[in-house]
Structure formats: structure tokens, C-alpha cells
């Protein structure tokens, strides 16, 4: 069968309809009724489940009383990216998972959407809620302009320090700008939030500056009083197969970046598409390529549905978008035709007596015009190289509970450190680091 990859499989209008928002914003009526459902629990399970410790019943009560600005303040004081998080947090396994209304009525309060309702209010009306403390005279460097770096920079600036943020790309935002699914982050949502963060002042952004290439960690440590590292994941895991780089095979994260940055009708889309992986990225890739008009999209995961990184809700999003999820199979061989990807051969998997995943020997072939690899990302620590480097443990920068690395004046957070790889945890890491750095900057 011939290879079929084309741009604009659907007409632009259909693509843009497909890429409309996953959740449309709540209307005033919905916000009033939904906030009235909140019981204003004491010691609320939702707050306990929030990685950034937002007083959720508190902000919902403020929406109910008509104090929407106050609600936004409650949210953003703990999570400066509360607007993005309202859109992209896997609430089904965080706050909404434990909402007592879910227990009582099988329907949680839609916390994420209420959070977005409140924060949209201050972003749309550009109500600046934060001011800087008097200047401390101290300087801090932040490497990486993703959620971790920006959250750290904002908190440091608020506490009166002067921040320089180094970002290797030409736009800040990290995966908010280049990674999160387009239908969760419509229009200039990411850029608007970043503009609001920077509006506090005291944060000088240097784009196009890469650690390990344009400057070294040692220089930062010499020139600044404290350093935060929020590099995110800067490497992707490989399948370990021959021909992995064949035409038609992509790293999902690279293609997702194009989806976020380019005109959607210029992207190459295969008729038959395979995604390998079982996490967030795999789901987002599968759904987004389907929305671009791929005819059949199959996600293949080596273990069972329960073991997938993607939540049940995300699996459902994929399935309702027409993605077929196949489990217990791993890629064995990439088949080509005229040096182009043509099919992938898979081997069924099973657990051996020790519970380890092994191939069963039985194989099957799926035809494919395009293959997207989404089997995880990693940290490549070489940019940190130098005389003194922060300790690395299990492939991540090692930090204590204050996000402090093994170096006295260096902190780190977000995907380059251990923990859940989520926007909300990256924001929390940056916030915690800034608090600890502030302590260090003020008291040595």
C-alpha cells in the first residue's frame, strides 16, 4: 500500500472547529450555580489534594459572594499559573477526585473550571494583584522559562529581589507555550498569563540563551547571589529500534510543538497513524493528530489500561475522539518502503513469573504512514557540566524538600527534579524554591 501523508486533510474550518476548546468557559449562571454546590468543607480534601495548596473552598465561596477578584487572589497567591492549571490540571486525579460532592452525588464541583472563571476575570480585565516588596539589592538567576522557572522568578521578584531569567528558546513559557494540548490552551492564553506574571516588574528575560552553550553554571554562581534551575525535560527516550529516525517517524513532543506554533493546515498528517506510549503526551498526540484528519489513529501501550500514565478521563477523551487504544504490545521492528515508514511490527507482552514485562513471541503488524514516539522524556544533565555540578539521582537533579540542590546557592524544580511531571507541581516547586532562596538571600 502506498504511503499517504498530506497537509490539510480537512478543510481549515473543520480543523479549527476540531481544535475549539475542550471546556468552554463557564457562564456567570454556571459559575453561580456551581459555586453554590460547594459545601465549603473544613480541612477540605480538595485543598489537601492540590499540589499548590490553594484554599479551594475559600475561593469558591468568594465566587459565590460576587467577590471574583478576591477569588482570583486566593488562587494566584498560591499558584501564579492558576489560570493555565484551571485548564490543564488532571483535576480528575487531584482536587475533583476527592471532592466530597463526588462522594455524595457522584459529581464533583467543577473546581478547575471555577478556577479558570475567577482567574480569567483578572487576566481579561488586567487587574494586577501583586506588588514587589522593597528592593533587597540581591540578584538571582533563573534558568528555564517554563512553569517552574516563571513561578520561581515571580515569587523572587515579589519578595524584592532582582531576577534574570535565561531561556534557550525565543519565547518563554516552556511547555505551556510548546507542549500543552492546543485545545486546552487556545489563542494566546499562555502568552497572556506570562505577560501578567512579568508585569510585576523586576524580571529581566534573556531569550535565546542556553545554559551549557552560551554560558556556564559557574558563571551564574559567580555573577548572582542565588540560582534556580528549571530546565524541564531536554531529552526524549528512544525506542531502541533500528530505523528509528526514518521518514514518517517523529518524537511526539517535537510534533506537538509544531501544532502549538504553526498553521495547523500546513502540518503533514498520515492516513494511518500509530502512537507508542501510555502517558499524557501519547494521548495528546493521538487526539491532536486525529483532529487534524488522520483516518485511523492507534495508540499502542506495552502494559494494561490501569498502568497507563494517562488518567481514565484522558483515555476517555482519546476514545471519544476515535482513537483506538491497544494494550500489551511493544514495538519490535520498523518496516519501511523506499526508505519511508510503512508499518510497525509489534510483539505481544506478558508478565513473567517475577512480574517482569517480557515479549510473548507472538507478533502482529500495523500499517502506518506516521509513527509518533511518546515513551517518555528525560533530563540530559550535560548543560550543568563544569567543575562543580549539582548531584544527580535517578536521572534527575537531586533536591531536598526546599528544592535545594547539593550546591549551597543552587535550587532546582519542575520536570528536571523528581516528582509528578505536571504544570501544577512545577509551579509549586518554583514557589517553594523561591521561599527558600529568599531566606538564603536575606540571611545568608
Amino acid at each position, binding site marked *: 500500500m502506498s504511503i499517504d501523508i498530506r497537509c490539510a486533510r480537512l478543510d481549515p474550518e473543520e480543523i479549527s472547529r476540531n481544535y475549539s476548546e475542550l471546556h468552554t468557559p463557564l457562564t456567570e449562571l454556571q459559575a453561580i450555580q456551581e459555586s*453554590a454546590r460547594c459545601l465549603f468543607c473544613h480541612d477540605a480534601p480538595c485543598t489537601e489534594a492540590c499540589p499548590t495548596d490553594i484554599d479551594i473552598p*475559600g475561593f469558591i465561596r468568594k465566587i459565590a459572594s*460576587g*467577590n471574583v477578584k*478576591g477569588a482570583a487572589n486566593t488562587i494566584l497567591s498560591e499558584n501564579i499559573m492558576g489560570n493555565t492549571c484551571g485548564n490543564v490540571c488532571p483535576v480528575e486525579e487531584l482536587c475533583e477526585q476527592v471532592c466530597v460532592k463526588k462522594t455524595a452525588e457522584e459529581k464533583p464541583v467543577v473546581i478547575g473550571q471555577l478556577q479558570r472563571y475567577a482567574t480569567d476575570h483578572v487576566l481579561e480585565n488586567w487587574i494586577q494583584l501583586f506588588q514587589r516588596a522593597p528592593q533587597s539589592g540581591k540578584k538571582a538567576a533563573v534558568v528555564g522559562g517554563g512553569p517552574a522557572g516563571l513561578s520561581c522568578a515571580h515569587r523572587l521578584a515579589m519578595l524584592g529581589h532582582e531576577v534574570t531569567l535565561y531561556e534557550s528558546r525565543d519565547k518563554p513559557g516552556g511547555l505551556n507555550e510548546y507542549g500543552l494540548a492546543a485545545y486546552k490552551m487556545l489563542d494566546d492564553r499562555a502568552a497572556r498569563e506570562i505577560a501578567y506574571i512579568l508585569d510585576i516588574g523586576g524580571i529581566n528575560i534573556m531569550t535565546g540563551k542556553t545554559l551549557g552553550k552560551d554560558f556556564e553554571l559557574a558563571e551564574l554562581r559567580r555573577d548572582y547571589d542565588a540560582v534556580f534551575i528549571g530546565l524541564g525535560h531536554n531529552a526524549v527516550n528512544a525506542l531502541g529500534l533500528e530505523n528509528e529516525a526514518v521518514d514518517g517517524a517523529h518524537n511526539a513532543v517535537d510534533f506537538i510543538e509544531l501544532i502549538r506554533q504553526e498553521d495547523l493546515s500546513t502540518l503533514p498528517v498520515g492516513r494511518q497513524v500509530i502512537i507508542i506510549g501510555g502517558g499524557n503526551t501519547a494521548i495528546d498526540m493521538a487526539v491532536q493528530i486525529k483532529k487534524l484528519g488522520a483516518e485511523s489513529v492507534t495508540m499502542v501501550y506495552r502494559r494494561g489500561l490501569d498502568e497507563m500514565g494517562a488518567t481514565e478521563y484522558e483515555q476517555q477523551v482519546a476514545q471519544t475522539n476515535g482513537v483506538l487504544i491497544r494494550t500489551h504490545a511493544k514495538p519490535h521492528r520498523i518496516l519501511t518502503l523506499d526508505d519511508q515508514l510503512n508499518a510497525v511490527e509489534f510483539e505481544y507482552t506478558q508478565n513473567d513469573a517475577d512480574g517482569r514485562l517480557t515479549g510473548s513471541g507472538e507478533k502482529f503488524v500495523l500499517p502506518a504512514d506516521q509513527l509518533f514516539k511518546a515513551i517518555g522524556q528525560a533530563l540530559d544533565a550535560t548543560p550543568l557540566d563544569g567543575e562543580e555540578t549539582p548531584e544527580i539521582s535517578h536521572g534527575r537533579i537531586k533536591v531536598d524538600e526546599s528544592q535545594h540542590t547539593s550546591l549551597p546557592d543552587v535550587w532546582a524544580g519542575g520536570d528536571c527534579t523528581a516528582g509528578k511531571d505536571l504544570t501544577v507541581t512545577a509551579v509549586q516547586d518554583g514557589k517553594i524554591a523561591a521561599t527558600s532562596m529568599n531566606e538564603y538571600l536575606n540571611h545568608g
Partner: protein
Amino acid sequence: MADLSCKIAGISSPNPFWLASAPPTDKRYNVERAFEAGWGGVVWKTLGEDGPPIVNVSSRYGSVDFNGQRMMGFNNIELITDRPLQINLDEITAVKKAWPDRALVVSLMVPCTEQAWKDILKKVEQTGCDGVELNFGCPHGMSERGMGAAVGQVPEYIQEVTEWCKVHTDLPVFVKLTPNISDIRRPARAAFDGGADAVSLINTINSIVSIDLDIMAPTPTVAGKGVHGGYCGPAVKPIALSMVSEIARDPHTRNLPISGIGGIGDWRDAAEYISLGCGSVQVCTAAMRYGFRIIDDMVDGLNNWMDEKGYATLEDFRGAAIPNVTDWQYLDLNYKTIAAIDQETCIECGLCHITCEDTSHQAISASKDENGKRTYTVIDEECVGCNLCYLVCPVPKCISMNEVDNGLPYLNWTEHPNNPMK
């Protein structure tokens, strides 16, 4: 950031939000938790005279739930404090010492003799509290002993007791009024004439919140029997606001400071009371429903609203609504509004039509096209501007009431040709 500090009858507090005399202010433990949470002041749970403590029943509260929301109305058959007087006095002393910036007023109710009031006042003065509130309002239990509402319903008694108190103490005296009376101005004038520094209102309203149809008895039920209790919570706010406005407008009591009470649950309720002239506001049911942390949004919400409106202090809007509360005969009979339905946001529920059709002026027509789309349209000539459709419409801003420029001048009932008494 607006300045929320409040001063009433010489008493200052960092914000106008006080807890009303009730279980939330019954003991040091609660009051200190309230102050930690940020409340500006408290009126301590009503103290009685020394002697055998009060006896309370078991099963004390009843509720009116509305559309799945709990406690839209709340009632109780509790009495004044059932703790020994000296323990209360000692705790009040300790709390005031630890929290000097908060308002601490002590509520009192003793038999109707000068000696009884003199005795209790002397003891209470020792605590260092900021003022006293005379509880003439409790509608149950205490009236049976010639106290509470039994006094509050007789203006002469109010005046006399207030006078005694003003003779026997220099502390500011608040008189707490019962709403179980037909004209609230009469007890308020009596308090004023007796020298009261302020009035607090309302106390609870006589009520039976429900009948348990299985046992055929009112709730709360005590061993198969029930009694009328005192009603409060969100449901009573309109009654209280009206009473507050009457006192604020009455030439006799115009400058009498008011501490507003009744159904206050958020900053907006409080702002409404303050706009009718209240100096401080008091809260009971909302705290009993959710705990003290509701103060967060009360303070924050009031602050944000004042900033938005450009009010720097409470005085900037206190009483601002009073000039706009008038008597019916002075309303402009030539003023005309009519309803308009926004077809874009209409969800086709038909409530505007059926309520107008059945119970008002047949001013909203209903039609259905071949696709089943329903359209409701106001018949301008029939609409009297009553607001009913606007009130029943479930969608915010879908129905609006718009002023019609009919070119007619202001004309009130006193001047109207149809007025036979003109």
C-alpha cells in the same frame, strides 16, 4: 485597600464584623478562635444574674431548608448562657486583656428591677469590656420569667431599664430590640429616650419552622413536644433591613447608632446594612453554619467592593441608601419601566410567559415555530413593569427592565387626580 475600621457608640474595632450574642460567643475558647480568624468584635452570649444556672433542653435547633440548601432559616429554643456567671466574667476579663483591639460587648438579661441591673453592671464593669447590650429580645423561655421579649415589647420598660443602666454604668449601652412587635420605632424611641448609646437589631422572630408529620409535633421536638422558637438566618434579612431603615429614617432616632443583625452571611449583606446606616453588623447563623472562617471573604469582599466604588472608609457609604428609602405616597407614579427579553440568551423555559399569563398582566406572548423553537415576546402596551418575569427568569441579564421615556413629570399620590383625599 480601603480602611474597614469601625467606630460605634465610642467602641472601635478593626472591622465592622462582630459575632452576635449567641453560642459562637458563649465562651473564651470560641471567642478567641473567632478573633484569631479575624472577627472585629463579639457580643458575649447573654449573661443572667448570679444563682442557679439556666437549664436548657436537648434538641434545640430547627431549620428551613430551601431547594437543597440547608439552613436558609434557622430557629432555636435555647436560653441565655447556662454557664456560671463568675466563669463568664473571668473569661471575658482574660479575653479583653489578650485582644485589646477587638470590640467586646457583654449582653445582659436580668429581672426587671433596678437592683438586679445595678448588681450585674458592677460585676461586668470589672471585666474591662467595651460596652453592654441589653437583651430585650429573646422570644422564648425568658419571657416566661418576665425578661427578654416580655420587656422588649413594652416601650416603657425599655426606657426605664435603659435609664437605670445609664445611671449605674459609664459603659456604652446598646439596647437589643425584638422584632416581635408591630412598630419597631416605638421600642427604638424608648431606648433613645432612656439614653441608649445604640440599638442592636434584630433578635430572633417567633417561629415554628416545621411540623414533623410522623409524630405531629413542631421541630425541634423535645420528648414529643415542641414550642415556638426564635427565627434567624438568611430568611430574616429583609425583615431586619426594613426595621433598620425605619429607625434610621425616624426623626426621633435619626442619629441613634445601629448595630445591624439578621441573616448576614457575606460582605454584600453587611454593605447593605451599612448603607442603611449601621455602624457595625452582627452575625450568628452564618457562623453557626460554616464556622468562623467566613470572615475571610467578608473582609476581603467588602474591601474589594469599596475599592471598586472608591470608598476609602465605611463612613463614605454609611447611610447612603437612607435618603432613597421613602414612603409609598412619594413614589413617582409617572415613572414607567417595561420588560425586554434578550432572545439570544433566552433558554425557552417559558416561566416568564406562564407567570405573567396566569398571575399578572398577560403581557408576554408565546409562540412556537415549525421547528419547535419557542419565542416569548413582551407586549409593550400590556406590560406594567411589575418585575415578575425578570424575577422568575433563571438566566442572569436575559430579561431586563427598561425605563420608558414617557415625557411625564414627577407625580406622586399626594398630588394624583385619583386621590380622593387630595
